[in-house]
């Protein structure tokens, strides 16, 4: 762990940097360190923010000063291997593919030289690691999409993309958590609210867990959407490595 760097990000936060690239090993170290920090009881930690390369640790210098916090965190690094890391969970996200919900599905299929059904099969066959969230509330940076369905962004971004839209941009895939402009190729839409400020758990996806998409029909979409509106929908999660529901 000698390659870990403690970078100054002002006087109330520190960026603990584990590497300078996007890969699963770095992500696993960041997750382990975040858990270790949480369990450590080091006083004065306000919140932590995992990113591709680092864990940003916000703290209150009225409780712990920079030098003391760095010393305490260096102490944690030595025992990182001994931390019990719970298995990642998999968030299951139902998607209505194609049609009005996914107006670019046919283009993506054509670009990949496959049928729409094949694109759906590939898109739903992977568990995507959530490296981090950012950009807007609940926007996930996912890794692991099959390169065979990678598609360039739209040349002309759409002015408004409805919340829940599932898209592809280059070799990235993801869900738009709120209505926003954007240039992703839209292949479907989920009725599940990734973000709802008035819910006890305002944002569903967490950094370090996985997302798995599964196809649903229009009737199922409408049913889940109605349950979401009524607040009765139960979100589906399972520990990684166990069978999906």
């Amino acid at each position, binding site marked *: 762990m000698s390659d870990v760097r403690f970078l100054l990000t002002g006087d109330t936060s520190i960026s603990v940097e584990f590497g300078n690239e996007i890969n699963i090993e770095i992500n696993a170290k960041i997750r382990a360190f975040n858990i270790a920090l949480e369990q450590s009881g080091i006083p004065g930690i306000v919140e932590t923010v995992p990113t591709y*390369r680092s864990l*940003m640790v916000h703290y209150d210098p009225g409780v712990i*000063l920079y030098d003391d916090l760095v010393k305490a965190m260096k102490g944690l690094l030595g025992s990182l291997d001994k931390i019990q890391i719970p298995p990642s969970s998999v968030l299951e996200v139902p998607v209505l593919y194609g049609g009005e919900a996914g107006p670019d599905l046919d283009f993506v299929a054509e670009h990949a030289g496959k049928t729409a059904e094949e694109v759906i099969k590939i898109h739903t066959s992977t568990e995507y690691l959530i490296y981090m969230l950012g950009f807007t509330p609940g926007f996930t940076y996912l890794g692991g999409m099959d390169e065979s369905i990678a598609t360039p962004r739209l040349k002309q971004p759409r002015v408004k993309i409805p919340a829940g839209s599932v898209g592809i941009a280059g070799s990235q895939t993801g869900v738009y958590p709120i209505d926003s402009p954007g240039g992703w190729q839209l292949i479907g839409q989920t009725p599940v609210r990734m973000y709802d400020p008035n819910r006890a758990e*305002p944002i569903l996806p967490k950094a370090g867990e996985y997302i798995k998409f599964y196809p649903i029909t229009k009737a199922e979409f409408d049913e889940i959407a109605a349950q979401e509106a009524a607040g009765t929908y139960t979100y589906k999660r399972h520990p990684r490595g166990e069978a999906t529901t």
Partner: protein
Amino acid sequence: MSVTVLNPGLLTTVQDMGRVGYQQFGVSVSGVMDPRAASIANILVGNEEGEAVLECTMMGPQLRFDVPNCIAITGGDLGPTLDGAPIPNYAAVSVQAGQVLRFTAPKTGCRCFIAFAGGLDIPVVMGSRSTYLKAKIGGLEGRKLQKDDVIGFRDPKTQLKNMNDRNLYPEFVPRAVYTVRVVMGPQDDAFTQKGIQTFLKETYTVTPEFDRMGCRLEGAVIEHIQSGDIISDGIAFGAIQVPSSGQPIIMLADRQTTGGYTKIANVITADFRILGQLKGGDKVRFEKVSIAHAQDALLTQRAALRLLRKSVDR
């Protein structure tokens, strides 16, 4: 038990100390642009420091009080008047029912903060009353104030004890060039020696591209070793982002939680009170300090606030 908005002003929003704990989910912190000024306003009217206030930008609002309450206005001097008569900044003022608070024109700074004794009746969303304009949450339906809005008081006070002591000298002093202290990092190693020297020696001008998310500066190009792009990491309040153009951007209250540009340095918390008051055309230079210096300055500021609290609430 409320004020009615007769005119919303340019950009008036409800803000407290921000939405803490949700950055890991991509939720911006938001909150006041000048936390120290807002804290002082709250202390002057007997509130907790983190109570929600109205943050007003350049052209302040017109507010009619439907019940009496005590208020304090801090930050920049936007020319507050009560029924047409000027009232002091940085002082608790008691307002009668029917009176109208107006702002004539900005005299110093860019933003002022109005604290209302007993706090505002605004729902808490994800732990905060702060307005987060981009995600449309917090404050009044996640937006800036508009005409005919009615903002309730939770526990208005017609009088406060020690009224004559509830004032202090306005803190914000306009300067020809503002010196803003910074600690270097997290990506200062992405710049050439010359780039770092440019950053610390040259004077930068605040451009009109200045909102609650960030403040774009213009001046000598800050030279990168390779490029201004990085694999995304976290962004703190006051981070000075330098994209490949070499022109710095100071990241502020509504900043995105993560970003992919090099950050050469970070403004120290004790100097956020300058950032919140900058406006287009202002000149800024940066002074490098140590982390120990920065944290000393912050703790000294906090101690002063505790002293103020003691003297007015004794």
